[in-house]
C-alpha cells in the first residue's frame, strides 16, 4: 500500500494540521516507510482473537460527582490566549 499526496492532505485535514506541499511530500515518504513496517501485522491470523482495549480489564469504578476545586476561574482564564471577562474568545463563527 502507498499513501499518496492526496491522502496525506486528507489526513492533515482530519488532523486539523495545515501543511504545505513540500512538507506533505516529506511526510508522505515518512508515512510510507512507517506503514510498510506496520504491514508486518498482516502475517498474523487474528480471526479468533479478541481485541485488547486496555490492560486494566476491570469495570471502571464510579465516584461521586463532587466539586473538589473552587474559585479557580481566574487562574484557568490566565492560561487562555484570548479572553473577555469570564469568556474564552475565538474567531467569529456566526455571521
Amino acid at each position, binding site marked *: 500500500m502507498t499513501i499518496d499526496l492526496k491522502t496525506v492532505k486528507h489526513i492533515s485535514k482530519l*488532523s486539523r*494540521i495545515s501543511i504545505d506541499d513540500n512538507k506533505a511530500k516529506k*511526510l508522505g515518504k515518512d508515512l510510507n516507510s512507517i506503514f510498510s513496517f*506496520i504491514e508486518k*501485522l498482516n502475517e498474523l491470523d487474528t480471526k479468533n482473537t479478541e*481485541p*485488547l482495549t486496555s490492560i486494566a480489564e476491570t469495570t471502571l469504578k464510579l465516584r461521586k460527582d463532587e466539586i473538589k476545586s473552587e474559585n479557580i476561574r481566574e487562574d484557568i482564564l490566565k492560561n*487562555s490566549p484570548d479572553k473577555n471577562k469570564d469568556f*474564552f474568545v475565538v474567531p467569529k463563527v456566526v455571521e
Partner: protein
Amino acid sequence: MSNITDLKLVELVDKIKKKELSSTEATIAFIERSKKSKKLNAYISENYENAIKKAKIFDQKPDFKKKLPGIPIAVKDLFCTKNIRTTAGSKILENFIPTYESTVTQNILDEGGIVIGKLNCDEFAMGSSNETSYFGNVQNPVSENLVPGGSSGGSSSALAAKLTPATIGTDTGGSIRQPASFTGTVGLKPTYGSCSRYGIVAFASSLDQAGPMTHDVRDCSLMFEIMSTYDTKDSTSVDFKRENYLNNLNENIKGKKIGIPKEYRVDGMPKEIDELWEKGIKIIKENGGQIIEISLPNTNYALPTYYIVAPAEASSNLARYDGVKYGFRSKGENLIDMYEKTRSEGFGDEVKRRIMIGTYVLSSGYYDAYYLKAQKVRRLIKNDFDEAYKKVDAILTPSTPNSAFKIGEKLNDPVSMYLNDIFTVPINLAGLPAISIPAGHDKKGYPLGLQVIGKAFDEQSILNIAFALEKNISFKNNITDWWIK
C-alpha cells in the same frame, strides 16, 4: 559542601534525618551544580528561589518522619505542577501554568520533597533521544554530543550528572528504561495502574506509566513506594496491596526462576550486549537462581502494534490542543483556519507525524485493518507473557539493542529511531513492570543496561533480582564533569 551531590537518595535522607545536613544545604548544593551545568540543557524551567524558600521553611520545623525530608528533586516536565510552568517539551504549552498538581508529584510533596525544576523531554514524550523537544537537545553527561535517550532525557541527564538526587519520568514504550540504560542509571516502569496518571500530560493512555529514575536499586525502591498509590482521580488506578518496597528489599534470589526469551537475540545486536546478557545469566545462576529458556513468539510484532496503538491514542489525546482555552494560538481567518495553523505551528514534526498516523489508522475504512488488528495482536503479545509466567517468576533481557548514539545520527530515519525500543515496547503493551539497571560499558565506554521484567504488580521481585544483579555487577559510571568549565 562539594560532595553533597555525590550522595545517593537514601544516603541523603539518612544524613538529613541524622541532622548532619540541612534541607537548605542539600537544596542549595544541587541548585548550584545545576546552575553550573546549563550546557547539558537538562532543565526547561527552574524553581530555584522557591525551592530554597521551601527548604528553609522545612528546616525551621523539620519533620523527620517523612520519607523525603526536605529533599530537593527535579521532575520531568510532563507532570503538571501547580503554579509551575508545565510544557511537555512543546511550543504549544510553552506558557502553560497548571492550576493543579499531578498525583505523583503531590505524593512527593506530601513526603517532604521539594521541586527544584522541570526537566527537558521529547515533545509530548514522543521520541527516544530528546531531540524532538521544542526546548532543544539535551547532552548526555557520559560524553559530549551524545543523546541521553528519551523521552525522559532531561531526567536521565540531570540524574547522571548529579543535578538531582533522584527523579521521575514516564514510560509509554521505553521512555524511562532506555534513557536510564543510556546514562548508566536505574529506571523502573511500574505495572500499568500502579502509579496514578492524574495530572500527567497524556500521550497514549493505555500505555503511559510514571516511574522513578535513580542512582541505584535502593533509591528506586524508596521512590517507587512514594509514587505508587491508589487514586480515585485515575479510573485505571488499581487498588492492590502496596509493599514496603525498600524495607523488603533483599538480594536473595535462591530458587527464583528467570526466563530468557530467545526472540530477544536480534540480528545485528552488538557482541557486547550479548556478553552483558550472558554476564547477567551467570550472576543469576551463581546466586541460586534458575535459568529457563522461554519463548515470546510474537515479539517481532510488538513494535508495529505499538506504532498503531500509541499514535491512535495520541491523536485522540492531543485533539485538546486547539488554541482556545490554554496554550499557543496562531491567527486564522476563521475558527477552522485558526485550529489548523495553531496545531501546525504549535506542534513539532514528530508529534505531527504521530497525530497523522493515529488519525489515519482510526479513520473511516481503515479502523478494522489497522487499529482493531493492532488491538488483537496486542492480546497475542500479552498472552505470550501470560504463558511464560506459568513457568518463570521474571524475565531477563538487555534494555536496548544499542548504546547511546550521537545527536543527529538517527533523526532523519523514524523507523531506525523506533527500533531503539524493541526490547521495552512489548512490556508496555502487556502492562507489566520492568526495571533497567546499568550493567556494563560498550567498547566506546558508553553504558549498557539489563532489563528485568516481572509479573503484574510484583515490583518487589524485580527490585530484588535487580538488587542482586547490582551487587554482583558493581557498575561504575565513569562520568567526568566535562560540561563544567
